[in-house]
């Protein structure tokens, strides 16, 4: 027979253990969720496809390439931070076979700087992480090149330097921004260096048609907040639950 004393001691310590580990578990689980902070800025962008001039323009892409010394590599080692794909490729869930020209609509895609980025969650070295203002950052000196983040990104917004990128740079167009080495992942960093100086991202500044609207999602009276309240916008793969911060306005019936 088990004595009462022994029973109480065993049962009590087991209960304490469960409670203690449960409280720790809660803490551990909290680490998996990136907290949406209300106090600081949250940067977001609207891509207005009704205003975007499409493949004939490419001003935003050129500006991005020049700003960040992005190498131009053809084929399977290509690297992009912002690029055009067909509408059906950017929004596969929003298309069907009978859709006409709309399928071909050039659609600008870039890193979504998600509220819940799956890429930062999987990084084993914190080489990619989310700033308080929501920008998903990359540290090219920390990255070990395991490419787990590329597997985790549902948008294909990350590129890997399969070879030395510097041999594909005709000139260093922005000496103030680092070039990368082979073996690291790179992606759009929302021009954090320009935002910190109070400037707009290079792509937004370069757009001649005001098709890119950048701003603070936490600021109630910002232009982007007003537009998001008034216009109907969609995001890429909402089913992934990542809550992207790049919103799209579609050219209803115009194109």
């Amino acid at each position, binding site marked *: 027979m088990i004595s009462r004393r022994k029973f109480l001691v065993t049962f009590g310590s087991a209960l304490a253990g469960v409670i203690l580990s449960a409280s720790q578990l809660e803490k551990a689980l909290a*680490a998996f969720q990136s907290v949406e902070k209300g106090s600081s800025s949250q940067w977001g962008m609207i891509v207005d496809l009704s205003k975007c001039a499409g493949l004939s323009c490419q001003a935003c892409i050129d500006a991005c390439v020049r700003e960040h010394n992005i190498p131009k590599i053809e084929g399977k080692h290509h690297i992009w931070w912002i690029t055009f794909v067909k509408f059906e490729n950017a929004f596969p869930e929003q298309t069907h076979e009978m859709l006409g020209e709309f399928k071909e609509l050039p659609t600008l895609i870039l890193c979504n700087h998600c509220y819940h980025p799956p890429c930062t969650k*999987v990084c084993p070295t914190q080489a990619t992480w989310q700033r308080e203002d929501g920008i998903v950052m990359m540290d090219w000196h920390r990255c070990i*090149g395991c*490419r787990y983040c590329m*597997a985790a990104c549902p948008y*294909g917004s990350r*590129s*890997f330097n399969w070879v030395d990128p510097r041999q594909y740079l005709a000139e260093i167009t922005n000496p103030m921004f680092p070039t990368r080495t082979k073996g690291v*992942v790179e992606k759009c960093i929302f021009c954090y260096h320009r935002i910190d100086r109070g400037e707009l991202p290079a792509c937004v500044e370069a757009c001649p048609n005001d098709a890119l609207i950048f701003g603070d999602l936490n600021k109630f009276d910002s232009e982007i907040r007003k537009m998001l309240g008034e216009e109907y916008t969609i995001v890429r793969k909402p089913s992934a639950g990542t809550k992207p911060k790049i919103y799209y306005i579609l050219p209803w019936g115009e194109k």
Partner: protein
Amino acid sequence: MFEKALKGGKLYWSWIAFLCLLILVGLASYSVQWQVGLGITGMSKEVSWGLYIANFTFLVGVAASAVVVALPTYIYNQHKFEKMTTLGEFLAVAAVTMCILFVLVDLGRPMRVLHVILYPSPNSVMFFDFIVLSGYALWNIIIAWYILSSRITNTDISWYVKVIIYLAIPWAISIHTVTAYLYSGLVARGMWMTALLAPRFLASAFAAGPSLLIIAAIIAKRYANFDVGREAIDKVAQIVTFAMIVNLFFLGCELFVVFYSQHPEHLAHWTYLLFGMDGYGKLVPWIWASIGLGIFAVLMMIHPTTRKNEQLLVFACALIFISIWIDKGLGLIVPGYIPSMVHTVVEYWPTMLETFIALGVWGVGLLIFTVLGKMAIGVFQDYPTEEELKEMMEEEKEEEVVEEVVTAPAKEYTCELCGAVFTDLDECCEHAEKEHKIAKASCDIVCFEKG
């Protein structure tokens, strides 16, 4: 102990030389990758994991299963399986080493690998995988080493080694589970995001790892006169059979959910893998070969007559090993990336250099397994336990008795001179003396065995 690995015949040394050659070719190829970057592989922006990670995934399973199958020996004190256990341990050590090497060669900046420890990130499954894999390698080296030393000194295993043995079993399950979580937690990849992935990994591992163990055991029996025992082999063969059946059942479950529900993000990858997509279908023949070989091997393993035939068993085990290698390697990692995240089909195929590097890593693993295995065989042969000595003698006696009992009634003797038939040689001889006047001592000139 190690000196035991330095003695061997021609066959042993030519096998070692062959493995060294593989390793050298791998090293030379890796030096090119080191210079140029991972661009020398077939991987691309769209398919950013390939042959290396595929092999890594497969070998984690081999490592895990080899131990789980073998270690219960110590818990239940069944020393009959001790030899199999030691082989299993060393197979695990070799497999884990290969896992670590495959991750290393896959890194874009391998010199920074210690960043994983310097900047620990408990939110990354890869961080946990790193911990469980290195821990696992350590436990297995300790266990195997102590088992062999206790053999030599003829003492029991100390209690703390037993603790590690107990620890190693759940740990083995954990390495493959954590590796499955590496994939199944990714919302981006419909093919991997299934709760069935970890159980499927375990089932396939329990088929592939022990298959390799059986092959190794039978090779050791043939070429090194090291018999792990028929009973041990049959037990492990049964495990392989069950595991492979469960594995195929899980595959069926997965296929049912994917193709009946028609959920596009899951369907796309499986459609590409099984039937091809947009005119691309490099993996189609491979995956069907994998499924076909798997089913065929299971049919062979289910029937006891084929399972207990050594040659057929090795053949079936080899089929299972190949089937699962394709399934875990090419059939899991690569199609997870196809179609890509912008719904284009970019195919992947390993390059020559990439294959050489992978073969080099396999060379390292097999070399480790061969050397450690040879060492273990040496120790076991030089230090048989008293029980084993007794058993060996008893077995010899038993065999003799069995021969007498079994063969006597089956034989028939005929008298050459008159054709009379006798069941016993003595009877025949008596008959020869009586009827034909031939001395009993030389009756073998007329009494012959029939047939």
